[in-house]
């Protein structure tokens, strides 16, 4: 099977190069045969890379330990689901997986894009082919998943136990899907630049792709937080680690892009900005892969260092130069059609939203790269950690939260006092009430108070929109409230789906405030001994050590310690945290021991218990107890976000003929002026 896989990779490389050439020439000459060939190449790439992936999966399932990759990431006693997830558990496999998913997306883009945007497809195929070929080339020349060993090991080394977790089976692919799908909007941007058709057409063509990519990134990041929370055992879910930051960066710029395209669609502004933003997002998705694999920044997450980093750096630099040249050469065509009229308008609020998001991205990038920057400038490495990121990003995040409430409602061009009063009187009053309530209960954290107040404001604006919209339909069409509500959302899915996504974001912010009220306690307890902690809500928790037990499970030795938990004297239940030593099929220890946290999650707060080990073989156990308010709302926020995203993404409901016409007119008026024939 590896011969087949190997062959498939080489074919994919050739096809990728072919697709790039015929795509470019087809687009340039308008030659139908070449255009057809570019499209078919995209389908063929998807087919051939599917073969390669199946070949690697077969080797994993069949325990073919002669294949170096299988020997490194799988073992006989690994459960089947984790054998399959080992496909992307290691470096070379994840490169193959990347190329595979990209080829599927590229084929889907060729297949699904409406005919009216067909002029963009040849160039888009060229771009996706080049990127696919790049990943295949890295796999072939720097990290080949089909490489064989010159001997056959009895068993594989197994998958890292921290990756043996259901969250880890879906977190990396989700994040990859997010990263990879950015390539499609990027490819269409390049195509629009090449064709010089820089009206809103390309934005309409990629509308769903942009949102899809953003939803995948959001889900990937949230699942990553969940995995870190349940598996890494330090009690939190976000540590501003370089790898986490690398996933956050394209999310920020894609969030900015998602909003700035609306300004171009409605007002013909920010054209240059949009092209640059999608280019930067794509670059950041590659950059994220680069820093996690090159080892230039020390992270607890790093892959082993290898030459793969140089490939990515070279790709990043050449791609950046190419994109800069392409944008520059079309600069005049990207002229704005309107100017900002007032700082109190929807355009302005979206403009601030973009500045803040990109500013945030820049600060995160700066902080992540600061060890390198300071070494270059001052000769000593200076690192910044969570305090830096929190200090900078919390105020920016709160400003963004406020804009989440203001942006969708404030009038275009210039808001009148009547407009402001109509939309914001009730939400502001609601926020003021919440603020008063928080002062009354003497909430101790300033930022948390601001966040909760703004959350009330934004929720107020969203609920008001739904109520008003439903009421209007009820009056105009005589529909009952349920039907009016359903039709309101169904007929304006982009708008109301967007509101639901915003509600998800508000939920995240509320959850984040809980982090200001964490309680931690470390204790060494003999059986029967107990400690008490007071939660942020004022409840008194008692943890009583029950004892330590030891047993063997499927592929590990387990040492488990249990505590009996009582809240305000009422027994809540038993929490059991484990220390696991994974073993291979001969019973030899593999990997360092790992910790399984015991978590009792409620909407109010999580109890999080870590068993750090027994004292000198006795039943005395060392524990860390954490009481984490509101953590569950992070996951709930994620679910709301996905729900809102799905409403918007659901097929149908594309841009109206009218808005397409309008976009075209604005463009055609401009072409002669720029000296370009149509």
């Amino acid at each position, binding site marked *: 099977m590896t011969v087949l896989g190997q062959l498939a990779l080489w074919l994919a490389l050739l096809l990728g190069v072919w697709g790039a050439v015929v795509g470019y020439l087809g687009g340039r000459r308008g030659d139908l045969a070449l255009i057809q060939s570019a499209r078919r190449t995209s389908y063929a790439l998807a087919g051939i890379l599917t073969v390669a992936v199946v070949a690697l999966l077969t080797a994993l399932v069949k325990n073919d330990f002669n294949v170096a990759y299988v020997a490194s990431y799988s073992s006989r006693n690994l459960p089947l689901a984790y054998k399959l997830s080992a496909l992307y558990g290691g470096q070379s496999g994840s490169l193959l997986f990347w190329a595979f998913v990209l080829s599927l997306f590229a084929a889907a883009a060729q297949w699904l894009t409406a005919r009216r945007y067909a002029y963009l497809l040849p160039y888009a195929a060229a771009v996706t082919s080049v990127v696919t070929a790049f990943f295949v080339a890295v796999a072939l020349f720097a990290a080949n998943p089909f490489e064989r060993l010159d001997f056959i090991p009895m068993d594989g080394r197994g998958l890292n136990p921290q990756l043996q977790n259901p969250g880890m089976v879906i977190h990396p692919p989700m994040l990859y899907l997010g990263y990879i799908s950015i390539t499609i909007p990027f490819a269409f941007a390049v195509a629009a630049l090449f064709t010089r058709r820089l009206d809103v057409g390309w934005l309409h063509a990629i509308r769903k792709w942009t949102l899809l990519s953003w939803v995948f990134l959001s889900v990937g990041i949230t699942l990553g937080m969940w995995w870190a929370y349940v598996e890494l055992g330090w009690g939190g879910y976000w540590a501003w680690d370089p790898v986490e930051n690398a996933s956050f960066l394209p999310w920020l710029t894609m969030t900015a892009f998602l909003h700035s395209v609306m300004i171009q669609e409605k007002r013909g502004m920010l054209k240059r900005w949009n092209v640059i933003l999608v280019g930067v997002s794509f670059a950041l998705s590659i950059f994220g892969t680069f820093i996690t694999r090159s080892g230039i920044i020390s992270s*607890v997450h790093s892959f082993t260092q290898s030459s793969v980093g140089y490939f990515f750096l070279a790709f990043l630099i050449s791609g950046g130069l190419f994109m800069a040249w392409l944008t520059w050469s079309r600069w005049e065509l990207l002229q704005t059609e309107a100017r900002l009229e007032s700082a109190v308008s929807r355009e302005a609020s979206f403009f601030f939203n973009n500045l803040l998001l990109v500013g945030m991205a820049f600060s995160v990038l700066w902080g992540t790269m600061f060890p390198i920057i300071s070494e270059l400038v001052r000769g000593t490495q200076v690192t910044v950690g969570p305090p830096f990121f929190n200090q900078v990003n919390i105020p920016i995040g709160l400003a963004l939260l406020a804009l989440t409430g203001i942006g969708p409602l404030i009038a275009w061009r210039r808001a009148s006092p009547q407009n402001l009063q109509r939309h914001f009187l009730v939400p502001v009053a609601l926020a003021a009430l919440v603020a008063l309530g928080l002062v009354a209960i003497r909430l101790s954290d300033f930022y948390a108070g601001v966040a909760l107040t703004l959350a009330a404001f934004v929720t107020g604006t969203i609920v008001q929109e739904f109520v008003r919209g439903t009421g209007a339909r009820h009056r105009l069409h005589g529909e009952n409230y349920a039907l009016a509500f359903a039709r309101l959302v169904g007929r304006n899915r982009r708008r109301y789906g967007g509101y639901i996504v915003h509600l998800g974001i508000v939920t995240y912010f509320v959850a984040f405030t809980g982090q200001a009220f964490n309680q931690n306690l470390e204790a060494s307890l003999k059986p029967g001994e107990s400690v008490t902690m007071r939660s942020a809500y004022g409840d008194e928790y008692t943890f009583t050590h029950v004892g330590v037990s030891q047993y063997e499970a499927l592929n590990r030795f387990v040492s488990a310690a249990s505590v009996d938990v009582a809240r305000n004297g009422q027994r809540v239940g038993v929490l059991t945290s484990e220390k696991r030593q994974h073993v291979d099929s001969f019973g030899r220890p593999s990997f360092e021991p790992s910790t399984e946290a015991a978590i009792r999650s409620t909407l109010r707060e999580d109890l999080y218990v870590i068993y750090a080990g027994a004292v000198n073989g006795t039943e005395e156990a060392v524990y860390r107890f954490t009481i984490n308010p509101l953590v569950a709302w992070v996951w709930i926020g994620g679910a709301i976000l996905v729900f809102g995203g799905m409403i918007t993404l659901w097929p149908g409901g594309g841009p109206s003929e009218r808005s397409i016409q309008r976009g075209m007119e604005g463009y055609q008026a401009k072409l002669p002026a720029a000296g370009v024939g149509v």
Partner: protein
Amino acid sequence: MLAGVLVVGTVGFLMATGIKETGVYYVTPSELAAKVSADASFHDVGVKMGAKVVPGTIQRDVATQTITFDVTDGQATYPVVYRGLAPDTFTDDVEVVVEGRLQPDGTFRATTLLAKCGSRYEAVPEA
């Protein structure tokens, strides 16, 4: 336009003060030794030190939850005292990052202990 400049300026200001207030030197043991001998007040500056644990020097006192061990970069060696739970990956001969202050008596009092481990995603190469 003015408002835009204001936003960018604020972000810039937040970053500059953030780095000034929270930036921490990242040094190797020999760099720390050089800095301290050049300027004795460096004792009071919090630093992060990346180094290797000297095998066999890890001592855990469970009663006080204190861990002591030596770190080295091959040239300079410092004894480290850390109070708290060590990560799972903290074992002999692993690379660690400790954050804290060098005491006048020459021990490094760490407030955080991170074990760097190339095996988070990759299997440990067999020695």
